[in-house]
C-alpha cells in the first residue's frame, strides 16, 4: 500500500511561466469567391506577451454545430463544407519580439469544381509555440481567423425546424423551458443579422399570451442549433392546453426570396 501511495505522489505545484499572448486582425473575412477565382490578402499578428515567441500558423476547417465555431482536427475533418484545402499562408511561422507585429500573407483559391457545391469554411489558427516543459499540464493559447467563402451562383441557406419541446420546471411550474431545434440544411451559411426568429405562446383559441424574440446565430450549412428559452407564465394563467409557435424569417439579397418557416405545437401546462 505504501508503495502505491508513494508512487501516486505527484510532483509539486503550479509554476507560472512567462506571460504569452497573440493578437490577430482581422478575425472574420467573408467573401464571395466564384469557382476558379482567387484572392490574396494578409493578416496582422502581434506578440502581446513580454517575451519573444515563435508563432505558428495552421490552416484548418471549422464548423459551428452549436453556434460557436469549432476548429476541426485535419485528420478527422469530414465536414463536407470544410475549406481546409483552399487556403495557403506564408510564412507558416515567425519569431516575434515583445509587442512586435508582422503580417502573414494568404491566398485563397476557390476550385473550379466544388462537391458539394456551396460555401466553404476555413480558419487560420495562430498559436504560440510552447516551450519544452516537464510540467504535467501545459496550456497553449491560440486565436483563429475565420474565412467564410461563398462561391456565388446556386447557393442558399435553407432551414428546417426539427422540433419544439416545452417542459415545466418541476420546482417552479410557471417557469417553462422551451427548446427548439433549427437546422441549416442548405448549402450556405446564414448570418445572424439575416435571421429573425420569434416564439409566440398562444392560448387554445390562437390568442397571443406572450412573445419571445430568439437570439439568433450565424449557422453554417449542415449544422443545427438548439435554442433554449425560458418563459415565465403569468401568475393568473390557468392550467390548460396552449400552443407554442416558432417563426423564423431568413432575409436575402435583392431579388432573392425571403424564406419563412414556422411550426406550432400544442402543449399541456399544469400550474
Amino acid at each position, binding site marked *: 500500500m505504501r508503495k502505491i501511495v508513494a508512487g501516486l505522489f505527484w510532483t509539486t505545484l503550479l509554476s507560472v511561466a512567462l506571460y504569452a499572448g497573440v493578437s490577430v486582425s*482581422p478575425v472574420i473575412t467573408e467573401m464571395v469567391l466564384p469557382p476558379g477565382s482567387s484572392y490574396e490578402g494578409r493578416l496582422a499578428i502581434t506578440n502581446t506577451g513580454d517575451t519573444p515567441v515563435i508563432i505558428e500558423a495552421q490552416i484548418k476547417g471549422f464548423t459551428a454545430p452549436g453556434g460557436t465555431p469549432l476548429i476541426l482536427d485535419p485528420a478527422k475533418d469530414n465536414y463536407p463544407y470544410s475549406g481546409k484545402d483552399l487556403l495557403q499562408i506564408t510564412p507558416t511561422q515567425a519569431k516575434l519580439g515583445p509587442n512586435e507585429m508582422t503580417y502573414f500573407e494568404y491566398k485563397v483559391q476557390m476550385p473550379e469544381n466544388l462537391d458539394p457545391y456551396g460555401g466553404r469554411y476555413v480558419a487560420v489558427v495562430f498559436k504560440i509555440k510552447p516551450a519544452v516543459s516537464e510540467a504535467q499540464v501545459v496550456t497553449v493559447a491560440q486565436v483563429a481567423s475565420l474565412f467564410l467563402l461563398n462561391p456565388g451562383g446556386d447557393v442558399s441557406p435553407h432551414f428546417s425546424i426539427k422540433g419544439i419541446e416545452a417542459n415545466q420546471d418541476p420546482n417552479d411550474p410557471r417557469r417553462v423551458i422551451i427548446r427548439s431545434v433549427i437546422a441549416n440544411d442548405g448549402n450556405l451559411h446564414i448570418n445572424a443579422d439575416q435571421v429573425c426568429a420569434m416564439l409566440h405562446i398562444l392560448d387554445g383559441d390562437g390568442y397571443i399570451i406572450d412573445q419571445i424574440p430568439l437570439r439568433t446565430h450565424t449557422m453554417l450549412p449542415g449544422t443545427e442549433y438548439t435554442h433554449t428559452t425560458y418563459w415565465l407564465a403569468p401568475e393568473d394563467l390557468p392550467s390548460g392546453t396552449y400552443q407554442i409557435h416558432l417563426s423564423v424569417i431568413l432575409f436575402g439579397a435583392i431579388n432573392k426570396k425571403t424564406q419563412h418557416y414556422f411550426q406550432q405545437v400544442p402543449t399541456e401546462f399544469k400550474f
Partner: protein
Amino acid sequence: MLFSKKVLWLLVLGVLLMTPLMAPAKDKSPVVKVRARIAGTLMLSIESGEEIDFEVDPLNNPEDTAQTELLVITNLPAYSVTALFEEFVIEDFGYDLIKNGKFFIRTKAPGSGEGIADWTVPEEGEMVIVKFEDGFTSGETVLIEYMLKIDFSVPPGVGKMKIVFTAVPEI
C-alpha cells in the same frame, strides 16, 4: 467656396489615413467580391497557469485543484473560447485520467457569456468552454479551473497533457 480650407485639409487627411487600411488586400480577379465584413481584433493571453503540476495521493490527498487565467482583449461584439484536451495518460499503465472520469474542469465567463458551472469531465475533441461572451473589452479574464480526483483504482505514475485554448469570434 464650397468647403473651407479646414474642411479640405480634414478630407485630405482622412483619405491619407484610410489608404493604408485599404492597401493590404490585393484582388487577383475582377469577379471576386469581398464583403465589408472584414473586421475585428482578438487577443488571447495566458495570464497564469501556463504550466501546472498536481500533487495527489489516494489516501491523504485524493484531490487537487489548479487554474488557468486567460486574458481576452477584443473589439468584436462577442467571442467564445474553445479548448482541446489531449490525452492525460499515465504512460506505464496506459491509464487515461480523462476517459476514466478522474479529471474535471469548470469555467467562468467574465460577463454575460455561458461558462461551465459544474465540475465536468472534458469532452473528446474540441469543446466550447465559454460561449457567447460579450466583447468590446480592453481586458477581461476567463477562468478555467481543473480538479484531479483520484482513488485506489488509479495506478501510480505521472500523466502529461497539453491543453490548447482557442479564442474564436462569434460569427
